[in-house]
């Protein structure tokens, strides 16, 4: 207590506190007044969680995604801090909407509160800025593409658009400058601006007090503390509880690392979906009318509201001309959002792309658990057979090879390539639909005459050629039998361990068949003597793809044996 006495004698803090707390509210405390303080509490929470995230997050295009992964999956409680920040941001948008509606309906923008109202609008703008910039920071697909769209919208501003876009992006291309600039805005400029605006907004609020609804009994007076504050605190705790529950039950999402070369179905965060949907409803040449016109119109209307609605009364019945467009606007936002969600739910293509994106994200997280190379998560994914290998395969190979139902059938199908089933069916009918039917290779006949047991043995023998130490064991007895059949029946045309194909006009060398080395050789130089020689019609990829790419496709194709 002595300490407080001392502090009070030096600062007058007690009087200040008493003034702030004992101040009376004309017309009494109300639940309708809780939104502003609720916003302040959520903002404070954002500051605290944001500072904590800054202790780990790294704004570099090579590390941003990785550091967010690290926060989400490695650091103690990191998922919670990040979740609170992520959903806290969304809670701010919602509570901000409620605050705006309440203030508009109560007519709290009227004389003498115009400046307070404008400060509030500026705060809204800065908060939207925080939401947009924060979205990019994980440098994942979602943020990357949403920002691409957002900055291109800014770029469609008449006259100065191109310059605006380049200043925001930090150049013509998205990259390190974009990330660093938006990071500076997100953690420095915008929170600082909000801090100042909020201080002024609150000071004016304390000067004017809340606007009681029409017909309230102004004779009733209640002190802020505890009457209003208990409502404020309850509401703030309720909001944070919702945020915490969503964090615990859903968790903040992290998409795959940003990759401009990968197909992605971009969508803005849900609170911008209405604008996105409005964009879809108008013809292309009217686009910037929607993307820039609507926000400008809404902003302009709200700014001018204190001048438009000058009647001193705040009775709803007398202000229908003002309230109706506001409510219609709110309904339009809800309706457009629902339309957009509904359209996506019934859009098969969007759903398929979304599924791809989700499985890519899950794979990236799975790989990242073993550590991310210093070059960043994109290299990690590129070197992953199931990601980079599959991507390059569908890019380069599906024009001739079918894989999992995709691609053209001009050469053997690769679904289940070199699996036991694939090999057995190949031996039964090499010129079948799935194999050489559409190639000019017709020298190999069906081996069915050897009898099914022999075919199964040769299958096991060939299957064993591509085996790696960590693979499940093969049937050794069957391999031995297969090896015998192979030596007596197949080596007239195929080389194996330096023997066979004495006329040198047969099929490929089958030593280590369908091993990664063998597949890589086939991809790089299919016309080599060890492969299909003169029978080959497949393009050589040695100079189209890097060695690492070929290695990764080979690893991907080798995994087909386990399908």
């Amino acid at each position, binding site marked *: 207590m002595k300490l407080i006495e001392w502090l009070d004698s030096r600062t007058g803090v007690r009087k200040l506190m008493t003034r702030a707390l004992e101040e009376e509210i004309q*017309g*009494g*405390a*109300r*639940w309708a007044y809780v939104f502003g303080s609720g916003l302040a*509490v959520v903002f404070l*929470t954002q500051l*605290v*969680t944001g500072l*904590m995230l800054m*202790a*780990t997050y790294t704004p570099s295009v090579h*590390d941003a995604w*990785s*550091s967010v*992964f*690290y926060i989400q999956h*490695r*650091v*103690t*409680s*990191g998922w*919670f*801090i990040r979740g*609170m920040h992520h959903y806290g941001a969304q809670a701010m948008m919602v509570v901000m909407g409620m605050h705006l509606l309440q203030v508009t309906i109560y007519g709290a923008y009227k004389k003498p509160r115009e400046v307070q109202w404008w400060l509030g609008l500026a705060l809204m703008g800065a908060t939207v800025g925080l939401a947009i910039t924060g979205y990019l920071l994980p440098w994942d697909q979602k943020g990357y593409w949403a920002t691409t769209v957002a900055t291109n919208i800014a770029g469609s501003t008449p006259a100065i658009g191109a310059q605006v876009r380049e200043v925001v992006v930090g150049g013509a291309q998205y990259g390190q400058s974009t990330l660093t600039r938006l990071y500076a805005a997100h953690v420095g400029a915008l929170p600082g601006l909000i801090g100042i605006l909020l201080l002024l907004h609150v000071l004016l609020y304390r000067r004017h007090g809340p606007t009681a609804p029409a017909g309230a*009994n102004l004779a*009733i007076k*209640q002190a802020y*503390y*505890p*009457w209003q*504050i*208990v409502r404020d*605190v*309850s509401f*703030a*705790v309720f909001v*944070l509880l919702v945020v*915490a529950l969503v964090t615990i039950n859903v968790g903040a999402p992290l998409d795959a690392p940003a990759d401009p070369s990968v197909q992605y179905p971009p969508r803005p965060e849900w609170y911008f979906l209405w604008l996105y949907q409005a964009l879809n409803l108008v013809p292309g040449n009217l686009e910037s009318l929607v993307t820039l016109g609507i926000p400008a119109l809404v902003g302009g209307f709200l700014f001018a509201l204190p001048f438009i609605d000058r009647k001193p009364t705040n009775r709803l019945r007398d202000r229908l001309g003002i309230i109706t467009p506001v409510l219609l606007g709110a309904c339009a936002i809800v309706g457009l959002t629902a339309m957009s969600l509904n359209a996506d739910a019934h859009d098969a293509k969007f759903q398929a792309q979304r599924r791809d994106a989700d499985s890519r994200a899950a794979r990236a997280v799975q790989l*990242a658990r*073993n*550590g*991310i*190379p*210093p070059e960043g998560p994109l290299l990690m994914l590129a070197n992953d057979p199931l990601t980079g290998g599959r991507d390059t395969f569908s890019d380069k190979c599906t024009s001739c090879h079918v894989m999992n139902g995709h691609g053209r059938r001009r050469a053997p199908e690769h679904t289940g390539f070199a699996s036991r089933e694939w090999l057995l069916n190949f031996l039964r009918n090499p010129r079948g639909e799935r194999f050489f039917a559409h190639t000019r290779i017709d020298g190999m006949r069906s081996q069915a005459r050897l009898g099914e047991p022999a075919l199964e043995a040769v299958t096991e023998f060939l299957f064993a050629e591509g085996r790696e130490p960590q693979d499940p064991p093969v049937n050794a007895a069957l391999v031995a039998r297969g090896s015998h059949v192979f030596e007596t029946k197949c080596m007239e045309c195929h080389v194996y361990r330096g023997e066979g194909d004495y006329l040198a006009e047969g099929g490929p060398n089958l030593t280590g068949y369908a091993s990664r080395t063998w597949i890589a050789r086939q991809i790089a130089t299919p016309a080599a003597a060890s492969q299909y020689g003169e029978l080959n019609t497949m393009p050589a990829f040695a100079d189209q793809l890097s060695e690492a790419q070929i290695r990764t496709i080979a690893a991907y194709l080798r995994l087909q044996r386990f399908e």
Partner: protein
Amino acid sequence: MSESEGTSSSRRKALKALIALGAAAWAAAVLVPGVSYLLHPLKRRAGDTGRWKRVAKLREVPGASGMPVAVPVIGEQVDAWTRAPAQRLGTIWLRKKSDTEVIALQAECPHLGCSIQLDAEHRRFACPCHESFFDLEGRCTAGPSPRGMDPLATRVRDGQVEVDFKRFRTQTRNRTSLG
């Protein structure tokens, strides 16, 4: 709504308690995870298994009568989210004890972690920071260092010297390895 609220002091008290409770709930929800988040580095991690690092060829290590040589330790480094191959992890001083055994000493000074250098003229090690001196076996002979240089286990495989590379807490009499 406001009319129904009396101003009785017991009611005021209850409301004040409620407010305090709300503030406490906020603090708990943000600060408890926050503190555990910030204290994450104190968590002991499972030591990584591939500790043995190849550092030199046995025949290139000076004999027992010669002067130790400094060699860099190169190995995989796990740093936060990054796993980087072939990073420089530190420096060690190497000298043979016998034809097949090698002594390895951490070059990091046990005092405050400067890099210990060889003072060949006086056949001793010297730390340039605060003048700690060590003999060629690593025993501290003078200066503020609380203990001798930190020895590292070595083994020889296929003519290559391998070291169990570790780092130790500075400023303590006893050796505690870090991580």
